[in-house]
């Protein structure tokens, strides 16, 4: 019974989701349900902040500083996508009350993921998260692209879950345990079976964070899914899977880090480079953001590859900045609306600064920030990543990183170029949606003024990592 207290936020959200699911049948007010969902997520944040640090269920579920910080980040991402949903539900043909509920279920899954300290808890969290996401991707039933995205995501996702489960069975078979800490204690560094298990689990997790070479689903799903859901894909699951990856690798296989380090090393380089080149040819903004997120995950993985507290700290700083930047970008994408139609092509942005000067200036700065140009926040994310890389003698990774960032600057600049240098088109009327502006302006201003006082983000990251190393 004692253990139940430690998963209070999860239980609370689960009850809320079930109640909302039932009331939704009778209560046709989707807006109200959505508001209740947002409110309960805020309550969950409050509950998480007041939780004691403990491990529950025979140490298979831990509540510590690391999980606290990541959970709050995940909840911020979920709340942001629910706010995006309010603004666009009618126009995108996703006006059904299950949306907020599926988001909540998925969020619970992610919260379990970042707290998981056991292979089984990890798998349960991962599946709860993924199954909700499959449905969410296909939510717009009338759209061919959305259905395609859902099916594609489901098939590839199921395959990756299979790989993951296969890997888990190997690890269990060769270590005799499913608990991360016990695996670490009973580890046999010579065992080839363990390595095979790690490789398969990493393949499954790389799929979830959409790292190359398991990234193929990302552009299609990003493009096909309705934009608030794409935003959700870009925000929360990446953070959760990254947290899980860190705990899985650091807690159970810290001793044989030499073996997995090179895998992370490779997928990090591959992600950065592929994303930098592939994004250049994109014409659709959501596809471009998909490649952009692949690239960013590549940078974040440098932090994992370092296997130092410096690296972990830089990973968290990077994820936080990534979260804020993506909230701004997706709120911006949703405001590209004219006569109830949404615009997703890069060329639709043409000459936007004439009609929306302030909005365009901010998104241009966000683009520079994504490219990692100082003095914007994105630069500091990369800066810490490179500090960590050089400190752990991975100069090669850092050099590839800066080269990729120069190449990727090109496609971010192209967006700025189209917005500023090209001929203007008609005005977008999405700029007056209050709920989107509530996301857009604060997040973009945070990105711009970050350099004045960066210590809070750094302190939070340092606070979070103390429970891992």
């Amino acid at each position, binding site marked *: 019974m004692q253990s139940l207290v430690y998963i209070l936020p999860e239980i609370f959200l689960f009850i809320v989701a079930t109640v909302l699911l039932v009331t939704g049948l009778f209560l046709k007010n989707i807006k109200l349900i959505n508001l209740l969902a947002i409110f309960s997520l805020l309550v969950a944040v409050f509950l998480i902040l007041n939780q004691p640090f403990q491990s529950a269920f025979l140490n298979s579920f831990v509540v510590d500083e690391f999980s606290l910080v990541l959970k709050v980040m995940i909840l911020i991402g979920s709340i942001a996508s629910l706010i995006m949903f309010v603004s666009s539900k009618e126009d995108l043909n996703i006006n059904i009350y299950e949306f907020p509920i599926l988001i909540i279920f998925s969020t619970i899954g992610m919260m379990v993921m970042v707290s998981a300290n056991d292979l089984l808890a990890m798998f349960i969290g991962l599946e709860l998260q993924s199954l909700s996401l499959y449905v969410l991707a296909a939510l717009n039933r009338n759209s061919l692209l959305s259905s395609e995205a859902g099916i594609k995501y489901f098939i590839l996702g199921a395959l990756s879950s299979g790989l993951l489960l296969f890997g888990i069975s190997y690890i269990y078979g060769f270590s005799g345990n499913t608990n991360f800490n016990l695996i670490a204690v009973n580890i046999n560094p010579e065992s080839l079976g363990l390595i095979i298990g790690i490789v398969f689990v990493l393949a499954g997790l790389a799929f979830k964070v959409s790292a190359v070479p398991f990234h193929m689903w990302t552009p299609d799903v990003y493009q096909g899914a309705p934009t608030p859901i794409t935003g959700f894909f870009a925000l929360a699951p990446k953070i959760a899977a990254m947290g899980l990856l860190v705990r899985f690798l650091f807690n159970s296989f810290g001793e044989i880090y030499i073996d997995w380090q090179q895998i992370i090393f490779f997928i990090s380089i591959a992600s950065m480079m592929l994303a930098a080149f592939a994004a250049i040819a994109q014409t659709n903004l959501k596809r471009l953001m998909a490649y952009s997120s692949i690239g960013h995950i590549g940078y974040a993985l440098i932090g994992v590859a370092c296997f130092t507290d410096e690296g972990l700290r830089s990973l968290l700083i990077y994820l936080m900045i990534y979260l804020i930047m993506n909230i701004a970008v997706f709120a911006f994408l949703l405001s590209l609306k004219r006569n109830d139609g949404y615009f997703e092509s890069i060329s639709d942005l043409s000459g936007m600064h004439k009609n929306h000067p302030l909005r365009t200036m901010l998104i241009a700065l966000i683009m520079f920030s994504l490219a990692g140009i100082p*003095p914007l926040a994105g630069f500091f994310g990369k800066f810490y990543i490179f500090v960590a890389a050089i400190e752990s003698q991975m100069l090669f990774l850092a050099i590839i990183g800066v080269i990729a960032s120069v190449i990727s600057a090109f496609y971010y600049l192209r967006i700025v170029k189209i917005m500023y240098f090209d001929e203007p088109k008609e005005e977008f009327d999405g700029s007056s949606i209050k709920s989107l502006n509530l996301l857009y302006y604060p997040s973009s201003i945070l990105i711009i003024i970050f350099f004045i006082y960066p210590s809070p983000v750094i302190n939070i990251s340092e606070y979070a990592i103390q429970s891992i190393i």
Partner: protein
Amino acid sequence: MSEIPILSILIFIPVVGIFFMLLIRNNDDQSSQNLKHTALWITFLNFIISLSLLFSFDLNNPDFQFVEKYAWIESGISYHLGIDGVSILFVILTTMLVPICILASYESIKFSVKEYLISFLALETFMIGVFCSLDLVLFYLFFEGGLIPMFLIIGIWGGERRVYSTFKFFLYTLAGSVFMLLAIIYIFISTGTTDVETLLVYNFTTNEQLILWIAFFTSFMVKIPMWPFHTWLPDAHVEAPTAGSVILAGVLLKMAGYGFIRFSIGFFPDASEFFAPFIFSLSVIAIIVTSLIALVQEDMKKLIAYSSVAHMGFVTLGIFTFTVQGIEGGIIQMISHGIVSAALFLCVGVVYDRLHTREIARYGGLVSKMPFYSFSFMIFILASLGLPGTSGFVGEFLVLLSIFTVNTYFAIFATTGVVLAATYSLWLYRRIIFGALIKDDLSEMFDLTRREIIIFLPLIILTVFIGLYPKPIINIIEPSTEKIVNQIKMKLD
């Protein structure tokens, strides 16, 4: 040490100005006029404040003055500002050129005035920041941050091939600079600090120095620019609006020269000594090759842009002699070039505003229609080719003097550059100003307006003043330069 954080004020006044300008919302002619006035007053105010630096600057103190230091990112990386004799003149050059640029854009910028002025003010913040920062991360922040407004200035208000040029400019400089970032991070990790004052007395091992020197060099070489990485500069200059060219030639190139003096030779004297012949060769090649290229240009701005590369060659020659004369010469050459090339671009802008072409062949015989213009143009052309009595002479003379003491061959080749400079400059002047006024569309040309005279007057005065009486300038530079040279000598021994 003064109590008022005067450098921070200088850096952030333009930012305050940006906020003011964001408040002016209308888009009609009246409000864009108001915007221009606001920007002009803000930058002029900044100039006045920067002049107060000169009065309270202690000439006998070779150390950093007006120092401000606050905790910033974490221990080792702080918000650390300060200026010495090397940097103070660059700060004043910047604050002087920005109001001139804004004044020069009064007529030529017709659309998106607000964005234009905001870009300029942001650029001013970054430029002053570069010369004031005494922390490598802070320096990098300002150094790279300047790319954003400059990218927009060239890209939005530039000429026909502006997109190509601005991308080239941005990606070239970014690609050069990221290696400096890695070097800065390496320094941070191995020494635990990025504080310039601490690092100036720190001794890196020779191997470290060689690698780090190359990383810093890639960045500064692209920015200054040195042959063979100079190709972005003519493109950027040709497509940029007049004020953009002015600030590019006047200040942005100097950031790299300043970086060479402060960081390359300050931190890595062994490596600098090792690479000095390499730098000399590149500089001499730059001086001769780009002078020859300048000779055949059809476009006025391109010609001046290539001449900038040649002039910057003198700067690097001077700096890497490690003599007091050489470094002083380099600094004076940079200051002088900042004034003269800025003025030359303004001269091009004057006729461009009237005829909308930069092709040299379209002009001729302007002297009969525009006497005042011809006079000012002549002064700057003469200063550019280094005639005694103008500011250009002092710098070049000191540099050649110092290079003679180090290596005669390089000196001989560099001196031919002076001759070539005279050739292309005077030839340019002859083709535009002299001859008979036979072209029809030139008959409409009118002389300098009052606004343009106000722009040129301070530049003419400064050019002649520095040329005739460089003592005050040298007095400012000398103590700090001597300190730098002594430090290098000490480290080398």
